[in-house]
């Protein structure tokens, strides 16, 4: 509870600071608030506090809260000079990101379906606005509108699903629902099944899994890069944590029922994400499609439910988050310099800025799953998990998709090192350096010593 309070209070303080034109104080205040909430994550560890039967801060919730708070801190560090180009009202954007974060904390810790809905809404409404912050930009507006329409639509699915589940079980509470399923395993009300499927569809919309992914590329491309980074890393992680909390915990007794549709979703997501990413000429759009394919790998954790499912998602999400943050940071810097965000704008980066090129290379290696990076450990735990039930064909299918991934991730590396670019030198702002160094260290450290995170939850 104290985590959410800290974040919300920070958001309000930042809003007031903006009112008094204290622009310089915005970032320090935000970071102070976020770091405080991170400390609360540490102190609440193993406490398992339940608040009014609405939220449960178990280690699962805390671990994911920690991850998304750290991710948000990195995103904030990348705001150096970023929003100032678009608008005067920086404080509002800071506040919106913080509110979105508060919503996500609820999404990872809800104990009641109503809280899930509220969490998603708090997050989404903030994001609809953030996607459209470039008011005079056509793409940004389009992204915002599309995101809003699709988001509202999917929330409808989710809400209807929740209603049906309530109708079947008479409760919003996760523990009650789970008890109902265990108790009435053979005679689950027929209302429950469509409810579950509708919730699944709603969640798949939110995490951008195929065939409910159509909004992702357009929104990711149109939204400002920093917001895209936020959406495709932190928001995605929170979405998965919410998805997993419901399906791996509460709905686990009906695993046999929802596994077949999930398998279809996983296969489609992997295939569509990877194959479409292969044909992109634009780096940002490639990242959007690759984020769809990563959603597919992440869903592997739901195929075989085990005590490790949660920590598998945590590892994968952490690997994916930090590598993507590097990729987006590089994208923002390069775009500011060249004005473009296609693969060609990365040409010759290895000479222009060897450090940035090296970090981005490690990020690409991690995203494609090369050993000694966090991404490999993530893929490894997912494959191991699914192999545990000897779903060998599925793993073989995933491996073929991973191979496709090499083509588009290595295209970036090829552009940076093997192609000649303009001779312009490229300097990194200090905060970017900090983010890049930390993300690099985390990516390599988790790749070499994954034990620190594997047994966290």
């Amino acid at each position, binding site marked *: 509870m104290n985590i959410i309070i800290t974040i919300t209070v920070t958001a309000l303080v930042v809003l007031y600071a903006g009112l008094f034109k204290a622009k310089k104080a915005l970032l320090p205040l935000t970071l102070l608030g976020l770091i405080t909430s991170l400390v609360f994550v540490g102190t609440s560890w193993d406490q398992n506090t339940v608040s009014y039967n609405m939220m449960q801060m178990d280690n699962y919730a805390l671990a994911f809260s920690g991850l998304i708070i750290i991710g948000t801190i990195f995103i904030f560090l990348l705001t150096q000079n970023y929003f100032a180009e678009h608008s005067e009202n920086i404080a509002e954007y800071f506040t919106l990101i913080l509110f979105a974060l508060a919503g996500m904390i609820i999404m990872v810790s809800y104990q009641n379906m109503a809280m899930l809905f509220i969490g998603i809404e708090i997050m989404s409404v903030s994001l609809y606005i953030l996607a459209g912050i470039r008011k005079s930009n056509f793409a940004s507006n389009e992204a915002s509108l599309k995101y809003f329409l699709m988001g509202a639509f999917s929330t409808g699915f989710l809400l209807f699903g929740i209603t049906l589940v309530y109708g079947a079980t008479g409760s919003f509470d996760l523990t009650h629902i789970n008890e109902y399923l265990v108790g009435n395993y053979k005679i689950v009300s027929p209302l429950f099944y469509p409810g579950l499927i509708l919730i699944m569809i709603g969640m798949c919309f939110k995490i951008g899994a195929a065939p409910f992914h159509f909004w992702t590329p357009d929104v990711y491309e149109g939204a400002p890069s920093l917001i895209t980074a936020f959406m495709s890393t932190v928001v995605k992680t929170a979405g998965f944590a919410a998805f997993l909390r419901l399906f791996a915990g509460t709905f686990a007794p009906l695993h046999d029922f929802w596994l077949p549709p999930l398998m279809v979703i996983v296969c489609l997501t992997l295939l569509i994400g990877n194959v479409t990413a292969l044909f992109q000429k634009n780096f940002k759009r490639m990242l959007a499609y690759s984020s769809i394919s990563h959603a597919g790998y992440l869903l592997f954790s739901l195929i075989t439910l085990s005590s490790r499912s949660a920590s598998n998602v945590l590892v994968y999400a952490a690997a994916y988050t930090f590598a993507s943050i590097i990729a987006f940071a590089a994208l923002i810097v390069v775009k500011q310099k060249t004005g473009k965000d296609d693969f060609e704008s990365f040409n010759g980066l290895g000479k222009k800025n060897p450090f940035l090129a090296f970090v981005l290379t490690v990020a690409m290696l991690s995203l494609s799953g090369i050993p000694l990076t966090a991404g490999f450990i993530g893929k490894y735990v997912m494959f*191991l998990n699914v192999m545990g039930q000897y779903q060998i064909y599925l793993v073989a299918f995933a491996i073929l998709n991973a191979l496709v991934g090499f*083509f588009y991730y290595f295209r970036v590396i090829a552009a940076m090192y093997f192609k000649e670019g303009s001779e312009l030198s490229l300097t990194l702002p200090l905060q970017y350096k900090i983010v890049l160094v930390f993300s690099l260290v985390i990516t390599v450290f988790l790749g070499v010593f994954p*034990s620190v995170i594997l047994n966290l939850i």
Partner: protein
Amino acid sequence: MGQLLIILLFLPLVSAVITAFSGRSAKYVALISGIASLAVALFAVVNFTADSSTQFVINYPWIATFGINFHAGIDGISMITVLLTNLLIPIIILASFKHQYKQESAFFALILAMQTGLLLVFTAMDAFLFYIGWEAALIPVYFICAIWGGKDRIKVNIKFFVYTVAGSLFMLLGIIYLYLQNPAHNFDIQALYNLSLDSQQQGWIFWSFFIAFAIKMPIFPFHTWQPDTYTEAPAAGTMLLSGIMLKMGIYGVIRWLLPIVPAGVQHWGETAIILSIIGIVYASLIAFKQRNAKRLVAYSSIAHVGLISAGIFALNTQGMQGAMVQMLSHGINVVGLFFVLDIISSRLKTNTIEELGGIAKVAPQLAIVFLIILLGTVALPGTNGFIGEFLLLMGVYQYGIWAAVIAGLTIIFGAVYMLRMYQGIMLGKTNDLTIGFTDIQGTEKITLYIICALVIILGVYPKPILHISEAAVQHLLEQVNQKLISVN
């Protein structure tokens, strides 16, 4: 003595970091590191007891959750490949001295980083560690070939990379399967040896490993990446790929494939031998037709590796011992050949045989060393190539006479196309292009003299090499046979 292996494994990695930041003196740092590694390796050879045991063992828990240990050690089989790696790396570094590579420090750092990966592969006693080394060796060489290679390098290398990674990912699938079958839930090599899998499982595991190894070697029909990659790569890249990296595949077959799935090998071994022999004939025939000398040597490499692989799958001591010696000899010879071709192409900007000729007249020293290395490659008695190919053919002969007859063609074919290449490049009339050719000098001379000395010494006195691996090979074959009896 475990510390020795730690030094051996991590000295190159540490040096790689130092090299990367040492600017202009990078090549000297790299060379010193290479020589130091060689010294450590030789020290290990001296302290090595030539029995079937695994020595210099290190074993630390690494990722305890999944039963992954940093478990490595050296037995007779590993010793040969460790020696090969540490011998060839300084030679390759020395051979790159004269090149004016851009961003030299990165180039030499990558070579050293690759050395650590290679040594991990050759010493790993944990399947997961083996896989890590397998990939860790690939990344640096990919960058070496793709940054400093010829004009088609990007396309060629992504093909090479995806090919290899495709193989290794399916191997990873096999490794995970073995892990799940292992009641102790770890990747320890001994535990995997002791698994009792039925013959159908063994068949699947065989293919998941075999394809990875076959792509690496490469065996027909998994070889299509190889000629292009060898031709487009910079000289050092070609030497690393053909001299050392290819041995990862051979070593993998001996260390992991044979003892873990002997029934799979028994069932599919014939297919593997047939593919190897097809590869020998096919690559030799194509080598005849090559106009580019570098491509010719690339195809000859496929033929030689085919013989090695046939010798291993024959599953007898001669074949296996032949493979051990031939791994070392082939590494030395092929590095020598590619270096000679690199000397020629860096002076004359061409490797096309028809455009060359008569170099022997203007460069007598090069002519002699080239000839010695060439004779080693075509397995003339008294050179290092002979003893290996002789043993390999003996092994294949025991397996089947017809296999040996066809595989024996490799020696005849090899002699023909190699000598024709020599004739075309070195003999005949000196033309306008080759008239200004300067003879080898400085580091080139040192490098080639060392290689020639190795060709002759190993040819005349191969016993120490045979002795190192003999007990380990015997032990391995006994293990395989015992397991076969218990399965059948």
